[in-house]
């Protein structure tokens, strides 16, 4: 049986959607193994299955979450290397008190900016990071920011339209 520990520590802390979780490092249920990806921890250990794993090779963008505000691929990130980090997933975008959806989530509903929906959480997370950094992106900015996101149904046009509506509303 191979070793699944981290030699330097026996636990880590993740702050996921503003909730702090402490995990032992190891092989038991509710622990995090050294080889666990962040996507696996989020989905299987924390039950946050809104983060989707499409290719599991870092090429499709569907597992995108925010790590200290920056969009990263959770399938290519080891959980043990996220100690002390703030992680935001699709489940963390809604206003916790009011239940109000994030403006991007609402715009995606209004524009039916999805078909099968499997890529949608990743695209919304990358869009959130984009708008946080640049509240009025151009069409090219939007397309570049989402260029690592695979959508096989081709909802791209409706996604771009939804995001543009948000930025146009703000301009007014």
């Amino acid at each position, binding site marked *: 049986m191979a070793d699944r520990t981290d030699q330097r520590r026996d636990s880590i802390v993740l702050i996921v959607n503003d909730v702090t979780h402490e995990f032992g490092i190891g092989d038991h249920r509710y622990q995090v193994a050294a080889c666990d990806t962040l996507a696996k921890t989020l989905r299987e250990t924390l039950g946050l299955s809104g983060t*989707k794993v499409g290719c599991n090779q870092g090429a499709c963008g569907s597992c995108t979450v925010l790590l200290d505000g920056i969009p990263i691929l959770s399938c290519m990130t080891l959980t043990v290397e996220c100690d002390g980090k703030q992680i935001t997933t699709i489940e963390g975008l809604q206003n916790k008190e009011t239940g109000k959806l994030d403006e991007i989530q609402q715009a995606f509903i209004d524009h039916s900016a999805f078909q099968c929906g499997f890529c949608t959480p990743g695209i919304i997370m990358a869009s959130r990071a984009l708008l946080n950094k640049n509240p009025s992106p151009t069409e090219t900015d939007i397309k570049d920011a989402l*260029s690592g996101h*695979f959508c*096989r149904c081709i909802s*791209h046009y409706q996604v771009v339209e939804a995001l543009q509506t948000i930025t146009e509303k703000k301009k007014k």
Partner: protein
Amino acid sequence: MKITKDYRFIGKATPRKDAAEIVTGKATYIEDVELPRMLHGKVLRSPYPHGLIKKIDTSRAENSRGVRAVLTYKNVPEWKTGTPRHVRVLDKKVKFVGDAVALVAAETEEMAMDALAHIEVEYEQLPAVYDVEQAIKSDAPQLYDEFPGNLMPLDVPVFGPRTLSSIVLGDVEKGFGASDFIAEGTGSYENIANPLPLEPPGVIAEWSGPNSLTVWSATQSASWHRFIMLSKMGFPDIRTISTQCGGSFGSKNYSAQPMFYAAALAKSTDRPVKVCFSKEEHFGAFVLRLGSRFRGKVGIKKDGTVMAVQGEWLVDTGAFSDMAQAQIAVGLGELQLMLKCANWDINTKLVCTNRNASGVVRGFGGQELESALIPILMQTLEQGNIDPVEFFKKNYVKPGQGYYWRDGNHWVSKSKDYTEAFERGAQTFGWAEKWKGWLKPSAVNNSKRVGVGVGVHGNADVGEDVSEAYVRLNPDATVTIHACVAESGMGQRSSLCKMVAETLKLPLERVNITPPDSLINPFDFGLVGSRGTYAVGSAVISAAEDAKEKLFKMAEDVLEAAPDDLDSEDGMVFVKGSPDKGVPWRSVIGLMHTCTGFGRFEPDYSVPNFIAMFVEVEVDVETGKLDLLRVVTATDVGQIIDPPSLAGQLHGSIGSAGIDTAIFEESVLDGNSGHMLNLNMMDYKWRSFAELPRFDNTILETPIQTHRYKAIGVGEVSTSPGPSAVFMAASNAVGKRLEGYPLTPDKILEALGKINL
């Protein structure tokens, strides 16, 4: 053109019913489903393209941590899938690199993976064959004893005894004799592209008794895993439930392999077992497009009349066939919709080879046949200097014209004349200005050559097969639709709610649809062949009408009026003209009752749909790079049900192994070892946000009289005209006849004489 009346919901953009779940991450896909006591199944796969298992030792794997079952060909159930039945759960013979050799069920995925490494297998390697014409030679390696020459039978039992497998009509020799222009050659569309939904296939199976199986799966048509699999598994009672499906494009209609694996492992462990393929397995051991090669001859007259089409269609299905025969039948039918011709002689061979199998993919035979044949047809148009728009317009099936469909029967189109849609599309695109003649670019900017092309396609499966539905009126003025309809991205579950809400004049939020579960719903064939709007829609609408009729019958005494004089809106029943004197449904139905109507749609192959696609491409003649600049689709749907859903289906033509199979999409098979080399999403090419073409849809709404809301679907067909249209555009851009798909830089530079391959 808008002739239809204004509706409350139909034709208006309304949010998808599942929108909130999707955007919040709550939508439940197969990987998200966890059942108590559930095990995880993994598959050991063959390193060889063709071989016999001489020895297999599973003892170490069986003793591996957390392992609950290890299955090999020696101890799997005697189930067989495929057409005809020829694919076992596991076989002693492996037929492609990645073919299943053994199955493991364990407490966790990691444990199952660890155990796979402990299975020891000795193989006797056999020679393999990958090329369709090599495979039918007399000395070729044989994949199956029952298919000598690697030739598979062409019958499709559910299509009836006369399944279409050839088109032999009139007299082709006479036709060629009367032709002004004749072209002959071989066209090949063999990139065996992957429809590649983002979510890989997955199934969970659980036996609740020796003969009672429940299957959860990511599928686009929930019922297939019951009605197709029943006979293949010895008639257990199968309940199938579809989870939210992360894309399908045909491919996940049917997940026979994962289903077999999960069901076999579940049977031997008596626990639920989940088998979700990895992306690599999705590439290497799940559905590809058919390989298509057409060798033949086309003759036309100066005025664009098609005089004769003759040839042999060689169809490569890979290691086995689930639905290749059905795709051949439909493809041959679709070719006749596109080309009006009196003299035909097309014969088909279906061939198995040592690669991952082809399966169901959007385009379903027609895309494959047309993409191979049109490059030959193009040469006749080139000889005659005939504008392809005029040609296709003239030859697309018109009302009153006939064709032989998949069942081998002759059908006459009762659909509409699509000429206007075609013309409007050409106008939107600016075809008249851009078309400069064959092999002539429409613009030249330094090393960049711009070219235009066009393709058409249609399908009479809009009315295929059977749909049944119940519509239940509840006393609280809500409505439940019982129909076995999955959600894999089309939004059809929401659109059906719209049709029922419209019919019953109820707010949309009061109408819901049951989960796609075969136990609680009547039969529905599924969302295939663009049948959702016309076939499923007609079934739910007639169930709603039936329920309404019953409601009015019940209200007869309450309102002291004849049912014919009654109407209902927003949950009130009233005498027509007196909406203010109505009574609520609950007073009519009663609190402890419901009022249920039934509807059924019976097959009708007389309403072909239509799509034309105009494309503009740019080729850099110094690098050979082909870029897609613009796409215009043209169609006539009778009545739009949900604008964004329709737009999504049409935009989808650049996904799911559609247009881009002419540009960069292909599965790369190593011709020496049989390995699929690009089974990852870096090496398998797909279109990103950064390179979207300008895209316009020209959608006409000429009512189709046989649907309550005058609508027919076009979702399935949108990918099909794309590849040949791009092929045409690229040829025109560079001024050379090109060859093969996809038109990657090597092919273009070779055609330009810049390199020798």
